[in-house]
C-alpha cells in the first residue's frame, strides 16, 4: 500500500509539486493585489485592466451592474479562470496565477458562490466537517477520525448559523436561506484569511440579513472579507469601503457616501437600480 | 491464354470480314437452315474435359453462325443448360426451385422446369477467360464503340508477333480515339518486351500495369540503349505512381471519413443538442438499411429506383422510430444524460433482436444499381470507386442540408435557442417538448439516411448498427459536442488518418492508434476540436 500511496501522492515523489505551504506574507501591505488583469472570452473582455487592492483585515463591498465582471473576478482569484494578462498576488509571496483551486483554497482563500452550493446528499454536519481546515491529502482524509475537539468546533458553527436542529438532515432539503447560511458556515469552518462572498443575502428575510451583516462585520479585522452584493441596503449597512465595477474595470472606489454621489456611478448604475436597492 | 487468343484471332480474321459484313446486314435469313450444324456445335460443348470444351468454343467461334456471340455469352453466364431429353435451353431466371427456360436455337419460351431436370454446361475460370477473349475478338469488329473499347483493353499484354500487322491495319482504320490509343499501346507493349526502342518510347509515361511490366522486362534486356531508356521511363512512371497512390489514399480516407460523418452526424444532433446519449443510434441506421432492402423487394428489377426512393423512406422510418423512442422513453429521462445511455442501449438490444426475429438473423442482399458499381477511371493507375464517391457526395449533401436547417429555418433557430438556454427558450414561448421531438426525429432520420448509404457498402444485417456506434461517438466527442462543423472535420480527418496509417501499421493497429490518439487528444482538449465556449458551456 505504501508504494501505491507514494504513487498517488505526486507531491511526495516530485519535490517541485509540493505545495507552497509558507504563510501568507502581509508585512509589506495588502493581502490581495490585482494589477492590470484582463480576461477575454472570444474577444469579449469580461475583465478589462482591473486593478484592485484589499488590505489585511478589511471588509470590502463590490457592487456593479450585471455583466460588470464581479463573478469573473472571483473566478480569477480562486483559480477557476486564468486571465489573459495581468498579475494577481496573495500577500507579497504567492502568485495566484501559478496555483490551482485547491492550492489557493488551502492557502486561505474561501469562497461562497452566488448560487448557494452545498453538498446536497451530505448532512449539514458533514458539509461543515468537509469544509473544516484539516489535512486534506488522501490518506489523512481516509483515516480521519471524529474527535471531541472537531465536534465542538462544528457545534459552535452550527450554533452560529442557527442550523443545530437540522444537523442530521441532508443539505438538499434546506431552504434557500438556510443553504446560504450553511455555506457561510462552511466558510467559517475553513478559517480563511480572505473570504470571497458572492451575494450572501439573496433570498433571506430581513432578520436573517441583519444577522448576516453582524456576522460579516464581526469577521472583519481578524479576516479580510470581500462581499459582492446587489442589495444596496445591505451594502450600506456593512460597508466601509466600496468598489464599483463597470465593464470589467474599476469605476469608482471609496466610502458608500462618496461612491453614491459620484456622477459616473449614478449614471451607469445607481440611477437605474435605485428602486431595486430600496 | 495468350496463345489461344492469338490463335482465335487469326482464325477469326479469316472470317472476320464476312462476319463484319454479316453483322451489318441485320436480317438473319440464313439462321434456321443451320440448326442442325448449330446443334452439333453445341453438342461438342457437353463433354467432361475442359480441354475439349475449349476446342468446342473455338469451333463455335469459327462457325459463321450469328448466334455464336449469344451462345458464348450464355455459356459464360452459366445459363446454357441441357434438359434430360437433350435439348439445349437458355435459363432465363435461376432462383428458386423451378426455372423459366427458352430454347437456345429458336428462342422460344418453354415454361418452367425443375432444377433437378436441368444440367448445366459447366465452365471453369480458364474457359471463362477464353470465352471473354473470344467475345472480345468478335467485339473488336463490332459496330458498338463501347464493345470495341473493352475488347481493345483486353488486348493489352496479350499481343504476339503474328498479330501486330493486323492490329496496325485496325489502328489505321479505327475512328475512335480511345480504341486507337489502346491498340497502339497493346502493340507497343509487345514491341517493348521484344526489346524494340519504338515500343519503349511509345510507352513512356503510360501508367498501365502491363506497360510497367513490359518496361521492366525491357530494362533487363540486352541492348543497353533500350534498357537505359526503359529504366528512365520506369523511374518517371514510378514517380507518377507515387503521386497517384497518395491521391488514392486521400480518397480512401475521405471516403471512410464520409461514412463516419454520416454515421455520426445524426448523433451530433441528438447528443449535442439534446444531451441524449443515444446508443440505439446504430440500430436506427440499421432500420434505414433494412428500408432499402424492403424497397428493393417491393420494386424487383429496379434497384436504382428503389435506392432513390429509400432515401426519403429510410429517413421517415428512422425518424418515426426516433419519435417513438423519444416519447416512449427519453422524455422521462430529462437531465439525466448518462441514464439515457442505459435506456437507449436497452432499446438497441430490443431493436436488434426484433429484426432477428421478424426478418431473419441472416444478412439481407441489397443490390447495387448499375450506375453505382464500378469505378471512375481517372488514369490507368487511379480509379475512384463509384459507390464510395456517391456516398461521399451524399454525406456532403446531408451535411449541407442539416446546416441549412439549423441556420435558416424556424426549427433550427428554436433548436439553437433550446440548446443554449432551455428555461429561457421556454419562457419565450418556444415549445421545448415539440422542439425535442423534432430534434430527435431529425437526428434519427439522418441516421436512417446513413443506413441507406451503408447498405451500399456493407452487410445489411442485425449487427450493422453495433459496428458503427462506437466510432460515431468517437467522432462526435473528437469534433466537439454540439458542433456540426466539428463532426464533419473530425470524421473526415479520422478517416484520412486511419487510411494513411493502415498500409504500414495494418488495419487493426491503425484503428488502435486512432483510438489512443482520441483518448490522448481528449486529455489535451477535454471538449473536443471545436468546444462550445463561454459560461453556458461550463454549466
Amino acid at each position, binding site marked *: 500500500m505504501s508504494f*501505491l500511496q507514494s*504513487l498517488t*501522492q505526486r507531491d511526495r515523489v516530485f519535490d517541485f509539486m509540493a505545495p507552497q505551504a509558507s504563510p501568507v506574507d502581509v508585512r509589506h501591505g495588502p493581502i490581495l493585489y490585482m494589477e492590470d488583469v484582463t480576461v477575454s472570452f472570444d474577444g469579449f473582455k469580461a475583465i478589462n485592466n482591473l486593478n484592485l487592492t484589499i488590505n489585511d483585515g478589511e471588509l470590502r463591498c463590490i457592487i456593479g451592474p450585471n455583466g460588470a465582471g464581479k463573478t469573473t473576478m472571483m473566478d480569477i482569484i*480562486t483559480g*477557476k479562470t486564468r486571465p489573459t494578462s495581468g498579475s494577481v498576488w496573495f500577500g507579497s509571496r504567492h502568485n495566484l496565477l501559478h496555483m490551482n*483551486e*485547491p492550492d489557493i*483554497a488551502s492557502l486561505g482563500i*474561501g469562497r461562497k*458562490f452566488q448560487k448557494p*452550493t*452545498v*453538498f446536497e*446528499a*451530505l448532512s449539514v*454536519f458533514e458539509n461543515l*466537517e*468537509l*469544509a473544516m481546515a484539516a489535512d486534506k*491529502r*488522501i490518506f489523512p*482524509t*481516509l483515516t*480521519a477520525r*471524529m*474527535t471531541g475537539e472537531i465536534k465542538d468546533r462544528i457545534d459552535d458553527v452550527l450554533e452560529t448559523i442557527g442550523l443545530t436542529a437540522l444537523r442530521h*438532515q*441532508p443539505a*438538499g*432539503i434546506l431552504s434557500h436561506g438556510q443553504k446560504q447560511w450553511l455555506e457561510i458556515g462552511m466558510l467559517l469552518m*475553513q478559517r480563511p484569511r480572505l473570504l470571497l462572498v458572492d451575494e450572501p443575502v439573496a433570498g433571506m428575510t430581513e432578520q436573517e440579513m441583519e444577522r448576516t451583516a453582524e456576522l460579516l462585520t464581526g469577521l472583519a479585522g481578524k479576516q479580510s472579507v470581500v462581499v459582492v452584493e446587489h442589495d444596496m441596503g445591505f451594502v450600506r449597512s456593512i460597508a466601509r469601503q466600496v468598489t464599483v465595477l463597470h465593464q470589467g474595470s474599476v469605476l469608482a472606489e471609496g466610502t458608500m457616501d462618496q461612491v453614491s454621489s459620484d456622477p459616473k456611478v449614478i449614471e451607469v448604475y445607481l440611477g437605474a437600480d435605485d428602486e431595486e436597492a430600496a | 491464354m495468350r496463345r489461344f487468343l492469338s490463335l482465335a484471332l487469326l482464325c477469326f480474321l479469316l472470317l472476320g470480314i464476312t462476319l463484319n459484313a454479316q453483322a451489318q446486314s441485320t436480317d438473319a435469313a440464313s439462321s434456321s437452315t443451320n440448326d442442325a450444324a448449330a446443334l452439333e456445335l453445341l453438342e461438342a460443348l457437353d463433354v467432361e474435359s475442359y480441354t475439349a470444351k475449349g476446342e468446342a468454343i473455338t469451333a463455335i467461334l469459327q462457325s459463321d453462325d450469328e448466334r455464336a456471340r449469344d451462345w458464348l455469352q450464355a455459356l459464360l453466364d452459366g445459363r446454357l443448360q441441357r434438359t434430360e431429353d437433350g435439348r439445349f435451353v437458355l435459363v432465363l431466371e435461376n432462383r428458386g426451385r423451378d426455372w423459366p427456360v427458352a430454347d437456345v436455337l429458336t428462342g422460344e419460351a418453354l415454361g418452367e422446369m425443375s432444377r433437378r431436370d436441368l444440367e448445366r454446361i459447366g465452365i471453369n475460370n480458364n474457359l471463362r477467360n477464353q470465352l471473354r477473349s473470344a467475345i472480345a475478338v468478335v467485339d473488336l469488329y463490332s459496330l458498338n464503340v463501347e464493345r470495341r473499347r473493352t475488347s481493345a483493353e483486353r488486348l493489352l499484354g496479350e499481343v504476339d508477333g503474328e498479330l501486330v500487322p493486323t492490329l496496325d491495319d485496325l489502328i489505321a482504320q479505327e475512328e475512335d480515339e480511345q480504341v486507337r490509343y489502346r491498340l497502339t499501346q497493346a502493340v507497343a507493349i509487345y514491341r517493348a518486351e521484344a526489346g524494340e526502342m519504338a515500343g519503349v518510347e511509345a510507352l513512356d509515361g503510360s501508367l498501365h500495369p502491363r506497360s510497367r511490366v513490359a518496361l521492366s522486362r525491357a530494362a533487363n534486356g540486352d541492348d543497353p540503349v533500350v534498357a537505359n531508356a526503359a529504366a528512365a521511363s520506369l523511374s518517371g512512371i514510378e514517380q507518377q505512381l507515387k503521386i497517384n497512390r497518395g491521391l488514392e489514399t486521400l480518397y480512401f480516407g475521405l471516403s471512410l471519413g464520409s461514412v463516419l460523418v454520416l454515421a455520426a452526424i445524426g448523433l451530433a444532433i441528438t447528443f449535442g443538442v439534446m444531451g441524449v*446519449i443515444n*446508443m440505439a443510434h446504430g440500430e436506427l441506421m440499421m432500420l434505414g438499411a433494412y428500408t432499402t432492402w424492403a424497397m428493393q423487394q417491393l420494386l424487383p428489377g429496379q434497384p436504382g429506383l428503389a435506392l432513390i426512393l429509400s432515401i426519403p423512406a429510410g429517413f421517415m422510418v428512422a425518424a418515426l422510430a426516433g419519435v417513438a423512442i423519444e416519447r416512449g*422513453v427519453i422524455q422521462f429521462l430529462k437531465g*439525466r444524460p*448518462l441514464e*439515457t*445511455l*442505459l*435506456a437507449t*442501449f*436497452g*432499446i*438497441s*438490444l*430490443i431493436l*436488434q433482436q426484433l429484426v432477428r*426475429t421478424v426478418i431473419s438473423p441472416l444478412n439481407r442482399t441489397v443490390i447495387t444499381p448499375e450506375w453505382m458499381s464500378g469505378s471512375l477511371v481517372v488514369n490507368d493507375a487511379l480509379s475512384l470507386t463509384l459507390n464510395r464517391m456517391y456516398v461521399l457526395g451524399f454525406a456532403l449533401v446531408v451535411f449541407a442540408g442539416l446546416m441549412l436547417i439549423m441556420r435558416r429555418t424556424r426549427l433550427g433557430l428554436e433548436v439553437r435557442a433550446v440548446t443554449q438556454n432551455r428555461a429561457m427558450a421556454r419562457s419565450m414561448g418556444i415549445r421545448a417538448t415539440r422542439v425535442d421531438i423534432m430534434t430527435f426525429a431529425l437526428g434519427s432520420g439522418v441516421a436512417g439516411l446513413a443506413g441507406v448509404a451503408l447498405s451500399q457498402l456493407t452487410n445489411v444485417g442485425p449487427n450493422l448498427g453495433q459496428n458503427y456506434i*462506437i466510432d460515431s*461517438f468517437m467522432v462526435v*466527442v473528437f469534433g466537439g*459536442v454540439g458542433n456540426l462543423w466539428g463532426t464533419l472535420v473530425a470524421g473526415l480527418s479520422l478517416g484520412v488518418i486511419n487510411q494513411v496509417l493502415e498500409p504500414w501499421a495494418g488495419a487493426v493497429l491503425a484503428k488502435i492508434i486512432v*483510438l489512443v490518439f*482520441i*483518448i490522448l487528444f*481528449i*486529455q*489535451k482538449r*477535454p*471538449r473536443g476540436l471545436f468546444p462550445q465556449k463561454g459560461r453556458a458551456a461550463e454549466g
Partner: protein
Amino acid sequence: MSLTTESSTNFWLTRPFSERSTQIFLGVLLAALALVTLLHVAVPPDNPLHVGAYTVNLFGKYLSYALLAVAVDLVWGYLGILSLGHGAFFAIGGYAMGMYLMRQIGDRGTYGHPVLPDFMVFLNWDSLPWFWHGFDMAWFAFAMVLLAPGLLALVFGFLAFRSRVTGVYLSIITQALTFALMLAFFRNEMGFGGNNGLTDFREIVGFDLRSDATRLGLFLATGVALALGYILCRAIVTSKLGRVSVATRDAEARTRFLGYRVERFQLFVFVVSAMLAGLAGALYVPQVGIINPSEFSPIFSIEIVLWVALGGRATLYGAVIGAILVNYAKTIFTGVMPDAWLFALGAMFVLVTVFLPKGVAGLFRYLKRRKREEQTTDPDHQHTSKEASA
C-alpha cells in the same frame, strides 16, 4: 442503529462492522456460503437438496460478477464517474490469472513444450515474450492481478482527471479504452492467444481445476473476496474520504474550493476500484475456464453498469443484488427461451432506468421508509445517501 459521522471515532477499516447494513450483508453472504457448502458436501447426490458441482460453479461465477459490480458502484455511485470500461480492468485481472494458469500447465500441453503455452508453439514462437516471465510464480501472478489493472487505471486516470475530463466525455473515453484494448488483445502478435484467448487450464496452486473440491474452494474464495471487497468499499465510503467523493460527485468545483485536490481523490478511488475489478476477473477465470478478448467488449462493460443500476446505485449491496439477479435471469432465459433473452435484457434496461432509477435497493428503502412514516412524521426527502448505511 445507524452510523452517523459524529460517532465515527473508531479505526476506519473496522468502521463498517458497526453498520447494520454491513452486518446483514455479511451475515447473509456467509450463511449462503456455508449453506451451499453444506448442501454440496454433506447431502448425498441423489437427494433433491443436493447442490451439484455445476451449481456451485455457477454461483462462484455470480459472486465474481458481484465483486465486479461493487467495484463499479464505488466509482459510479460514490464518485459519479460512469465508467464504461471497467470490463477492461476485469479482463486484465483475468488475463494475469490466465497467464499464471497457462504456465502451470507446464509440459502437459498438447505439444508437450515445457515452457511455451500451446498457442505459442502453434504460432511458431521460439521463446516466451518478456511479459510472460514471472507468471509461473503464484505470488507474482497474484500481485499482477492487482497491480496490472491498478497501473492502467493509474495512468489513464492520471491523464483524464488531471485535465478534468468529466461526464459523458469520460464515459466515452473509458469506452474507447476498452475497445482499443479489445482490438489489441484480438491481435495474435500481442502474445495473449488472440481470439482463442487462454484455455485448457489444469491446476491452480497445486489443486486440480477439474475436481469438484477445487471448484468449491474457488467458490468459497470468491465469496470471501466479495466480503473483503465489500468491507473495504464500505470503509472507504463511510470515511471522510467517502464523503469527499460524494461531495465531488455532486459539486466538483465546490470541493476544489474547499481545498481538496479532487483529481487525486478521484484517482485513488478509481485505482482501488480497478484493482477490485481485476481481482474479480482473476477469480472468474479459473471458474469459467477461459479468458478471451470478448471480456473487453464495450457491451459487457455497459452490462455491468446495468447490474448496478438495477440493484441500486450508491448502495454497494444493491450492486451485488443486481449482478446476481441479472446473471441468474440470463442463465434461466437463455436456457428456457433463447430468442427472448435479448428482449428481456433490453426491456430491463429501459424499465429500470425509467421506472426504478434507484433500483431494487431503492425499492427496499422506499418500502422501509413508508413503514417508518406510518409511525413517525419524518419529512420525506430525495437525497438519502446517509440512509445507505441505515
